[in-house]
């Protein structure tokens, strides 16, 4: 187990290094720069700015400098939000996105898994059809449509829920719904098909032959075998939702990290691009390690190597 952990951490660091390298050079390959704007600034000012942030040096030197600094935990200053460090911005914005995304993940699991179970248990009946219909909608409808419909109905027409920010518990309802709709639907479908597969297995027949009740066969014998695909899906989804969604944060005016990803790129804010990308990559890698360990706990046949 210790050996496994060490190996995974080493692999994770290697992946991070590759991600950082690729991002760095891709970013440099994109035309434009952080100090371009509609109002042209003088060549001298531009040169001074570039010199200040070290952008006048050859790309390879910049790359080396960035990596050395990053290894020391210094992700540099934001090029656009003057006077703020990248780590600073991530540290203040991530909790906002994470609280929203975390709630959405919990909702998706708490609603999606039972829905999938219900659909599988009542296969072919109306409950199943209803859930499949819901799931298809959830997968087909993008979050900006969901968000707009929610805002129009509950915010503007009925005036029940606040449409902006995350100040009260009630203000979580709409963005969480918009964020959780797709993963809920996806988990429900995944759970249903996986359960149907498991329910046809021989050991389910054994359980019934033992006299175990229908409910208990489902929850004790089937669920644990069927949940692996869901765990696989939830890992990356969790990472994606925790760092925030650009669309939902923009629509509900939430000061989260999701918006920073997109604006960093449009602004060519090199330091922000690198910082947010490495942060997301690290999160994905860490969650995947947790998922692998969960696999082992759920299914004893899986060996961690």
């Amino acid at each position, binding site marked *: 187990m210790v050996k496994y952990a060490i190996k995974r951490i080493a692999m994770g660091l290697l992946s991070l290094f590759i991600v950082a390298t690729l991002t760095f050079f891709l970013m440099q390959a994109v035309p434009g720069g952080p100090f371009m704007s509609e109002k042209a600034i003088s060549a001298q000012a531009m040169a001074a700015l570039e010199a200040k942030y070290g952008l006048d040096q050859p790309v390879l030197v910049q790359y080396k400098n960035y990596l050395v600094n990053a290894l020391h935990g210094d992700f540099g200053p934001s090029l656009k939000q003057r006077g703020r460090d990248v780590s600073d911005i991530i540290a203040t914005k991530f909790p906002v996105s994470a609280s929203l995304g975390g709630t959405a993940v919990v909702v998706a699991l708490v609603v999606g898994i039972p829905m999938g179970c219900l659909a599988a248990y009542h296969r072919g009946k109306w409950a199943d059809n209803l859930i499949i219909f819901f799931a298809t909608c959830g997968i087909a409808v993008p979050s900006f449509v969901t968000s707009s419909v929610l805002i129009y109905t509950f915010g503007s027409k009925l005036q029940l829920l606040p449409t902006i920010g995350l100040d009260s518990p009630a203000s979580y309802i709409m963005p969480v719904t918009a964020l959780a709709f797709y993963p809920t639907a996806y988990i429900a479908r995944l759970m249903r098909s996986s359960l149907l597969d498991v329910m046809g*297995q*021989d*050991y389910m*027949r*054994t*359980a*019934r*032959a*033992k*006299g*175990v*009740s*229908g409910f208990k066969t489902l929850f004790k*014998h089937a669920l*644990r*075998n069927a949940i692996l695909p869901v765990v696989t899906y939830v890992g990356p989804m969790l990472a994606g939702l925790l760092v925030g969604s650009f669309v939902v944060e923009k629509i509900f005016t939430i000061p989260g990290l999701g918006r920073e990803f997109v604006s960093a790129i449009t602004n060519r804010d090199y330091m922000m691009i690198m910082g947010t990308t490495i942060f997301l990559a690290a999160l994905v890698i860490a969650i995947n390690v947790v998922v692998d360990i969960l696999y082992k706990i*759920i*299914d*004893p*046949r899986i060996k961690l190597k």
Partner: protein
Amino acid sequence: MSDLLLDIKNERLSFFTPAGEVKALNNVSFSMKQGEVLGIVGESGSGKSVTAYSLMGLTAYPGKLIGGELRFNGHEVEKMTEKEFRKMRGEEISIIFQDPMTSLNPVYTIGNQIVEMVRLHTNKDKKEAYARAKELLELVGINEPERRLKQYPHELSGGMRQRVMIAIALACEPKLLIADEPTTALDVTIQAQILELMMELRKKLGMSIIMITHDLGVVASMCEKIAVMYAGKIVEYGTTDEIFYNPKHEYTKGLINSIPKLNQKEKERLVPIEGSPVDLLNPPAGCPFAPRCKSCMKICLRQMPPRTDLSDTHYTQCWLLQKAEFEGKGGKAE
């Protein structure tokens, strides 16, 4: 007749599929005494397993019992609810399946799966159930039971897993054990061990066994009575001696003929039964075996033959025997 443990009369069961009604069982009747071993033989799809599963209420949707009387140990099985079935399963009637590799839940320990059975049907607490599980493993001849209880199914061999399945099945000392091709998935040497174990346990616990198999060697060595099934019907029923030494139905004869013989010459071909089983969606009006039967007569294609009793224990359904009986009484055949 109160000494009968099991008495099935005219059982009819169909699967209602989108393609139509599949008549899986057509007027199946047989009975068993306490302690008897009955073999049900027949090719795939002949209804062997369905007959056994219907006793436990395990023929899942879209299978439906549509007629007949099933008496088992004082129960009117055809009228039982799922709840009553649940209590009966495992307690009075148990089953072991064909493939021990897939019949145990891979994510729970052996101990957990035996204890579950014990606790479902007795009032034993966790510790007592665990002790009972250990005892059961010893009973089925598994060494180091303490250690095995903590292991997962994938850590055991096929033969060992089948022993565990038997331990689970026997946890509550059922009156009837259904063995659904228990040795098909095992090596020959392990097969013999498992069969031996089953016979030994039967002697010890006095239970009855229904042995479902297509291995005639297995039934010959284990069973007292044999039911030969074809297309959802019992075409011949009798004691092991009657079936092997005096088979009357053409299908039974074909089955016995198709067994490889020890004195067979090296290049000699095996004798198959020509043709393929009937489509149960559209069963023929007459005898279902008629299209494959070498001695098929006109009437065979038109009408199902009635039952001919050859002795107290031996009966078959074949027009040839009706003819013989008719001629024997001095009449004239058609």
